[in-house]
C-alpha cells in the first residue's frame, strides 16, 4: 500500500493547495514539542549535575567496594540504540517518499532495537544486582546516581517504544498522509532525543 493512495483529509480550510490551518497548528505543535524536549533535557541535567557533584565530593571513583562497570557490554548495547536512531531516520524519510513498506519495515526495526536495548539494560541491572551486589538504595551514591539516571533513560526508551508502536498502528489506519505526518516527526524527534541523552550518560558513567 502506497502512502499516496491513502485518503487525504479534505477540509474547508484548504486554499490554493495549502491547508493553512494545518500548517499553523503544525508549527505550534512542533515548537511546543521542542520546548517539552528542552525541559526534559533540564530534568536529566539536574540529575547529571547531582551525579557529577557527588562523584567529585572527595572520595575515589568508583567508591571503595564497587566493581567497575562493564564498558564493553554497554558499548554494544549503545550501538543497538544508535542503530535504532538510524532506522528511525530512514523510516521517516521513506514515509515522506511514499514507500509505505520500507517505512513500516524500518519502524518495526526501530521498535525491535529499542526493546533489545531495554533487554540489554535489564541484563546489566540483574548482573550488577546478583553478581556485583550493587543496588539502587544499598550502594551509596554510586547506586543512587547510576540507577536513577540510567533508569530514567530506560523509562524514556520504554515510553518511546510504546509511542512508536502507537504511531505504527496509527499510520496503518491512515491517520497520517504523505504531507500531514506531524505525529511521525514528533516521534522521530523524541527517539533522537533519547539517543542523544544516552550519548551523554554513556560518556559520564562508562568512559570518564
Amino acid at each position, binding site marked *: 500500500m502506497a502512502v499516496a493512495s491513502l485518503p487525504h483529509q479534505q477540509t474547508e*480550510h*484548504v486554499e490554493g493547495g495549502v491547508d493553512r490551518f494545518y500548517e*499553523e497548528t503544525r508549527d505550534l505543535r512542533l515548537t511546543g514539542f521542542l*520546548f517539552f524536549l528542552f525541559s526534559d533535557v533540564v530534568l536529566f541535567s539536574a540529575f547529571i*549535575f547531582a551525579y557529577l557533584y557527588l562523584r567529585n565530593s572527595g572520595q575515589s571513583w568508583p567508591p571503595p567496594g564497587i566493581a567497575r562497570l562493564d564498558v564493553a557490554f554497554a558499548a554494544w548495547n549503545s550501538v543497538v540504540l544508535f542503530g535504532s536512531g538510524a532506522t528511525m531516520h530512514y523510516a521517516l524519510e521513506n514515509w515522506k517518499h511514499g514507500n509505505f513498506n520500507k517505512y513500516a519495515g524500518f519502524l518495526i526495526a526501530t521498535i525491535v532495537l529499542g526493546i533489545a536495548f531495554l533487554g540489554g539494560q535489564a541484563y546489566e541491572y540483574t548482573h550488577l544486582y546478583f553478581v556485583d551486589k550493587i543496588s539502587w538504595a544499598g550502594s551509596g551514591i554510586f547506586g543512587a546516581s547510576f540507577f*536513577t539516571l540510567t533508569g530514567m533513560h530506560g523509562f524514556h526508551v520504554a515510553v518511546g517504544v510504546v509511542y512508536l508502536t502507537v504511531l505504527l498502528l496509527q499510520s496503518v489506519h491512515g491517520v497520517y498522509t504523505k504531507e500531514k505526518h506531524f505525529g511521525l516527526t514528533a516521534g522521530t524527534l523524541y527517539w533522537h532525543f533519547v539517543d542523544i541523552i544516552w550519548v551523554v550518560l554513556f560518556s559520564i558513567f562508562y568512559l570518564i
Partner: protein
Amino acid sequence: MAVAATHVGGGIADHVHPEPQGFIRRYVFSIDHKIIGIQYLITGFIFLVLAGLLAEVIRTQLMNANGGFVSNNTYNEVYSIHGSAMVWLVVIPLMTGAFGNFVMPLQIGARDVAFPWLNMVSFWMFPVAGLMLFSSFLMGAPVAGWTEYPPMSLQGEAGTSMWCAAIFLVGISSTLTGMNFMVTILKMRAPGMTLTRMPLFVWAQLATAPLSMVATTALAGALAALFMERQFGVPFFDPTKGGSPLLWQHMFWFYSHPAVYIMILPAFGMISEILPTFARKPIFGYKMIAFSSVTIALAGFMVWAHHMFTSGLAPFMQLPFMLLTFVIAVPTGVKIFSWITTLWGGKIHFTSAMLFAIGFVVLFALGGITGIFLASVPTDLHLHGTYFVVAHFHYVLVGGSLMGIFAGFYYWFPKMSGRMLSETLGKWHFWLFVAGFNGTFLPMHWLGFEGMPRRVAVYDPQFQFWNRVESVSSYVMTFAILLFFVNILVSLRRGKKAGPNPWKARTLEWQIPSPPHYYNFKHVPTVYGLPYDFSEPLPYRGLDDELNDAPAPVPAGAH
C-alpha cells in the same frame, strides 16, 4: 517603519469553535483561557486566605516572647506550609496562571492560548496539588521551612514526602503553562504585532515563561531525589551514606532563585501597563523595560549560590556570585527609573489600581535595597538566618508581588466581570494594607540587625515590644484583605457597569466588550504601532465591529 503583515485567510485566526453550552464544559472543565484565568484567580485567592491565616497563627504565637499559642512543633509546621503555599499556590499561579491566562492572549490579539486542552490540564493539577500540600498537616507536616534543607527534611514526618509530591505536581503545572505561553507569544500574535510592539505585560510573560519551563523542571529533579531518598532510602543528600546536603541547596536554589523572578516579572509587566494608563503619558523607555525583563530572567540563572554563603560554599565561588547578584540591580534600577520618569509630568489619576502600582514601586525598591545588603558576603554572614532576611523577602513578595496582584486585579477586574470595583473600599484597602504592611515588616529589619533568628517559636524577651507592634499591624493587614474580598463580592452584584474601556487604556483587551466574547475578537485586528502613544489615534485596524451588533464569526465545521 515596518509594513504590517497582510492577513491571509484560513489559519488559526479564522478558526472559531462554537461556545460550549453545558455548565461543566463552560465553567468547570473549560478550555477557554479567560475562564481558566478566572479559575486560577479564585483558587489562588482561596489559598491566599488559607496561607494568610497560617501567617496570623505565626504572628499570634510571636505576640509573647515565650510563645504559648501553638506548640513549638506546630509552629514549625505552620511557617513551613505558610511559605510553601504562598510561593507555589498563591503568587506563582496568580501571576502566570491567572493574569497571564486572562490578559496575555487578549493583549496579543489571539483567540486563545496555543494548547487550550493542555491549559485546562495545567489548571486542574493546581488545586489538586494545593489539597495535597494542606493535607500534609494530617500526617505531620514538613518542619524545615519552605526550603526543606536536608538532613532535617530527611527526618521529617510523612507529610514531608507529601510536600515533595504536591510541589512536584504544581511544578509540572507551572512548566506546562510556561511552554504554552512561550508558544502562544512567539507564534500567535496578531498580524503586525512585532516583538517590539507587544504590550509590556506580554514582554514580562515572555521573560517569565522560560523560567517556569526550565527552572521548575530542575526543581522537579530535586524533589524527586528527596522523595526517593525519604521513601526508598536512595542516598543523595544524607552525609552518613556519602550524599551531600549542599547538593540539595544547589538543586533547590537553582530553581528557587529564578522562581523569585517568576514571582516578580509579571508584576513588573502589570505596573508597566497601569502607570502609563493612569498618568496619561507614554511609557518611558519601552525597549529598556522590555529588554531589562529578559536580562533579569537570564541573569537570574547565575546567582543561585548567594543563598548559600554561610553553607560552606568555597570562598572563590562567593565573589562571582556576589558580583553577579549586584549586576541584577542594574536592570531592576532601569525599570524603577523608567517608571518614575513615566509618572514625571503626567496627569496622574489616583485610582485604587494606580495607588497599588505606586505603592509597588516604593515598597519593591525598599525590598530591592535590602537585597543588596544580603547579596554582599560580609553583611550576609551577619544577617543570614535573621529576621532581616524575613523583612527583605516580605518586602519584595508582599510589597512587590502581592501589591502587583492587587494592582492588576483592580485594573483588570472590570474587563473580567464587566463591573467596576468600589473605589472607596479600594482606597481603604490600600491605606490600611500599606500601614499594616509596614508595621509588620519594617521592624523586622532592626530586629534582624540585633540578631533575632528566624524560624523560632520563642525568642529573647528584649524583642517583645516590636514583635507586638508587628503582630497588631499584621491584623490590620488581614483586615484590609478582608475589605478587598468584601469589595469583590459587593461589586460583582452592585458594581457600576464598566463598559468596554473604563480606564481609556490603549492595549487590545480594552477595545472589545467587557467581559469579552468567547471568541475574543470578531475579526483579528492588525497592529500598526505601540499601545502607549496617548493622544495619537489607536494603532489598530479591523476593530470597527467589536462594539456593535455585527454577527459573531462563523464556527468552523463540527470537530
